[in-house]
């Protein structure tokens, strides 16, 4: 064990960590653009931007650069951002002269965006980012993306619950573990010269992460949970074991990798692509496509293959499945493996979209729970639908509530659903007695 740890540590040192972005990691970003007579976006350069606390104390200022952007680091909290209209380029004015300042909220580790619609005095207009339609579409896209990524973790959680009755709290760490497995694999692939194509090395890393995640799931059941089941350990005790396991895994990851945020080298620095009104990065797009593909495959496998039908049979009625000749323990083992692999892949997707960090899985665990509960415990489709609803709910709710509170909405939604329809959106009512 100690030897293994040494190897891991030494290996880590060989991996070059990607440099953090040059701009502020947390704070406020202002991007000023206007449309010129040819309807092309032009940056508004050299505009002074001031940031003050809600009480009016100035905490920072900057000047927009060649791209019309400026980013200012701040604490978390609510700030008043204003621009000095007198520094705007000649012939450009604020669309609404009274709106020279904006209130924005900065979350931990986030860049809050402040928008100032500009207008060329000849009437050819504006910063399009203020367009509500565009914002809604963008949020829906983000919501679908988040929902699909959550679903990758949720399906395993739901299948494990369905077949064994266990609420696996360590699932969060299976997601995190997948992220880090991919992170290491990517570094390794680059180090030995496989990184000719950036995308290739991440794709390879994702495959390796799935294998590692699947093996981890398989092992957890083989070494731990199958034995607990055999001993007749109660589900509550098993749940507490999974909590202990989760804490253990999370802090081992923290111990080995440290607390800082990492990013996949293959995808850092990519620019968002435009599709109509919606922007999405190439790697996000690929991830979304892949997750849809994987989910369809899982769905088909559950419907069409023998082992898939066996999984559903075990989830439906374990005793009946057992008596009709299905090797229940083998099916459960496989469910753990598939669940582990999907969670790991979900981890890679979440990691490439955001960051690779020891707590990443834990952060989404409650959202995954929310999705699973919403869709109905124990059903794979329910988990997918529930997660999509949660993802969209989280993102779209930022239209109405401060984004720091967006996860609260999802948690409230989950509690609400539990109360009015405990079996979830797609779950069946259980027969009592």
């Amino acid at each position, binding site marked *: 064990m100690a030897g293994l740890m040494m190897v891991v540590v030494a290996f880590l040192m060989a991996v070059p960590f990607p440099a953090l972005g040059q701009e502020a990691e947390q704070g406020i970003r202002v991007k000023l653009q206007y449309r010129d007579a040819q309807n092309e976006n032009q940056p508004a350069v050299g505009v002074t931007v001031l940031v003050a606390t809600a009480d009016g104390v100035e905490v920072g200022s900057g000047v927009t650069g060649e791209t019309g952007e400026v980013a200012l680091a701040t604490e978390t909290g609510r700030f008043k951002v204003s621009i000095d209209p007198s520094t705007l380029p000649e012939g450009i004015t604020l669309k609404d002269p009274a709106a020279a300042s904006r209130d924005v909220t900065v979350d931990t580790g986030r860049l809050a965006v402040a928008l100032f619609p500009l207008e060329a005095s000849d009437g050819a207009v504006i910063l399009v980012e203020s367009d509500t339609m565009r914002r809604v579409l963008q949020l829906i896209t983000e919501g679908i993306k988040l929902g699909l990524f959550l679903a990758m973790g949720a399906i395993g959680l739901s299948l494990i619950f369905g077949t064994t009755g266990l609420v696996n709290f360590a699932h969060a760490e299976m997601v995190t573990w997948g992220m880090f497995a991919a992170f290491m694999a990517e570094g390794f692939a680059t180090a030995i010269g496989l990184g000719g194509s950036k995308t290739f090395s991440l794709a390879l890393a994702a495959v390796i992460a799935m294998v590692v995640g699947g093996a981890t799931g398989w092992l957890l059941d083989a070494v731990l949970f199958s034995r607990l089941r055999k001993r007749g350990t109660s589900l509550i005790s098993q749940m507490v074991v999974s909590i202990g396991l989760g804490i253990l895994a999370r802090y081992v990851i923290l111990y080995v990798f440290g607390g800082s945020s990492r990013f996949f080298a293959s995808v850092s620095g990519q620019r968002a692509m435009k599709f109509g009104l919606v922007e999405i990065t190439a790697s996000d797009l690929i991830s979304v496509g892949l997750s849809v593909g994987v989910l369809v495959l899982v769905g088909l496998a559950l419907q069409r293959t023998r082992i898939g039908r066996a999984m559903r049979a075990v989830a439906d009625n374990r005793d009946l499945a057992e008596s009709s000749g299905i090797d229940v323990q083998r099916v459960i083992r496989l469910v753990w493996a598939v669940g582990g692999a999907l969670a790991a892949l979900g981890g890679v997707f979440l990691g490439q979209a955001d960051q690779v960090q020891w707590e990443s899985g834990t952060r989404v665990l409650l959202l995954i729970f929310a999705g699973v509960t919403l869709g109905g415990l124990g059903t794979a489709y329910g988990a997918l639908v529930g997660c999509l609803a949660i993802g969209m709910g989280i993102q779209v709710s930022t239209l109405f509530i401060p984004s720091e509170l967006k996860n609260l909405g999802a948690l409230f939604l989950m509690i609400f659903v539990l109360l009015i329809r405990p079996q979830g959106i797609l779950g*069946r*009512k259980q*027969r*009592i*007695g």
Partner: protein
Amino acid sequence: MPADLSSVAPEPGSAKPDPILQVEGMRRSFGGLVAVDVEKVEIQRGIITALIGPNGAGKTTFFNLLTGFDEPDGGTRVFDGKNIDSKTPHQLARMGMVRTFQLTKSLTKLSVIDNMKLGAKGQRGESFLVSIIPPLWSAQEREIEARADDLLRRFKLDHMREQYAGTLSGGQRKLLEMARALMSSPSVICLDEPMAGVNPALTQSLLEHVKSLREEGITVIFVEHDMDVVRDISDWVVVMAEGRVIAEGPHETIGKNQAVIDAYLGAHHDADLDLDAGEEAVIPPPEDSANGEEE
């Protein structure tokens, strides 16, 4: 002495001279499956009524509905002249209708005596604020304990008094559950398969206990599979199949009822006919020799 039921027509839904329980139009479905659809049943006070039927006939669901553990889709229930449609299980228990379960629910990590004491009604010490001050409840507790010890002796469980209930055998648990139910001095006791999983040596003593309940004036309703048991102790038999009551009567008439035979052996004729039989309650009135298949 149990009431004379000879004047009661042996057909589903027949009215009893002194009913303690009346059920009308009770329905319960799970998804599309109708588990219970009982048009009318009355239970006579002070006798032993057996509820029988093939597997999946809806007997346990019927019990759950009767005792408030499950909510019917519709219908009315009357207990001792009072409508009990909106009563919860614990309210019904306090009114005097207690039940036991098919899978015994002995409280394994409580001692046998604690199990018994739990059964008593109206305990002052069960209120939070009172419980903090022992003098307010210790006298009552001693009374309850004395009563519990009496019952334990009667059910021959007194030697297990301080054991965890979880250490009892299956049959002893059934006895404990029955004794515990008696602690509340009920007027109706509903026993869900009291003989299931009991070793034969204990069966006889359990049967005697059930009969002695009738002697004390307690109304007994019980679900049972074993026809020998039913023949031995029941005064009246209600037969369910596919959620409906298909026959009623003293056990002598039940054995000859075609609908009952079909239900148990599986219908060989058209299913429609079977349902008709259930609805119209075609039990041929007993011939003059109706009383004697056993003797």
